[in-house]
């Protein structure tokens, strides 16, 4: 009881602080200085129509690299803690069969989902979307495959391969930016091209595709491990 009272008292303090934040918030009329620079100079400098993409991939590209690293670390830790069941144990389990409608529907839908994910991350500099969204969509596609065939296991090798290759290529393109352009993860190692077309914005589509593949592979690995976790520690 005392504990609950203490908790409520602390929360009341936090609520008071947050109320202060809310009361002192006034709306800005114009963009802040940094954002104004990005909005005025960004489209000509980088050639990307989606300003969020240019911030994520180039201006703040190092943060994105750190974020991908966090995802990789999380996937590794989960792999360390949850050991997968073996193939024989998977066969010994007896989940309820999936229906034929689900099988057919998934076989029809999964290629469409993959293509849509690829569209989302390749067109990330023109339309909303990009590596994270496309990666999540691709992970959802693999998840649908897991759901339709609960007994299969495999695909680990492919997931690891895609993850490693795209990670190495991502860092490689970043280092190429040091030598061929102005700095790490600069997208102008390729010509910026005509504004608003698919082959524009330098290396942004390539970098975002690599991020998409890596995020998709890592999220798939996390889901795979949570699905296949063995019962006993």
């Amino acid at each position, binding site marked *: 009881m005392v504990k609950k009272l203490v908790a409520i008292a602390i929360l009341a303090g936090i609520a008071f602080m947050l109320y202060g934040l809310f009361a002192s918030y006034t709306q800005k009329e114009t963009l802040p200085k940094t954002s104004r620079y990005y909005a005025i100079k960004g489209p000509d400098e980088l050639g990307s129509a989606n300003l969020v993409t240019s911030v994520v991939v180039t201006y703040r590209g190092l943060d994105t690299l750190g974020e991908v690293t966090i995802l990789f670390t999380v996937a590794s830790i989960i792999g360390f803690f949850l050991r997968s069941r073996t193939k024989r144990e998977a066969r010994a389990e007896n989940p*309820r069969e999936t*229906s034929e*409608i*689900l099988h057919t*529907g998934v076989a*029809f*839908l999964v290629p*469409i989902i993959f293509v849509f994910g690829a569209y989302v991350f390749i067109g990330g500099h023109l339309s909303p979307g990009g590596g994270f969204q496309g990666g999540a969509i691709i992970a959802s596609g693999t998840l649908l495959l897991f759901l339709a065939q609960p007994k299969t296991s495999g695909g680990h090798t492919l997931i690891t391969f895609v993850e490693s290759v795209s990670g190495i290529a991502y860092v490689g393109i970043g280092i190429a930016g040091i030598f061929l352009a102005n700095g790490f993860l600069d997208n102008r190692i390729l010509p910026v091209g005509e504004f608003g077309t698919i082959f524009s914005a330098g290396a942004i589509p390539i970098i975002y595709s690599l991020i998409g593949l890596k995020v998709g592979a890592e999220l798939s690995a996390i889901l795979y491990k949570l699905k296949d976790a063995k019962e006993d520690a």
Partner: protein
Amino acid sequence: MNTLHIIGGAVSILGALFLLLASIGLIRMPDVYNRMQAGTKATTFGTIMFLAGIGIASPGWIPKLIVLVVFIVLTNPISSHILARAAHFAGVPLADRSVTDKLAEHRQKAGDK
């Protein structure tokens, strides 16, 4: 331009009325299976009508709207099917007024538990 807006708005209102019907069915129907019936069929049609209205009002958007409609038409029946199947396997009872249960007969014949 304006005429297209009015026609599109009318079609959209029709679709929205179907969505409303679906929700009323969701509340009024007696058991899960009937609710599913109301909840998926009427909403599929209602959403298609709604999107058609928007497409009439701004014709440049039609390709993306067609993609959206195709996805809805593909995914919605699958989800309703597997949900009904799951509810049946989990033992959710039918309403008192229901008269046939073909899946239960089939499972009895097949010797399922």
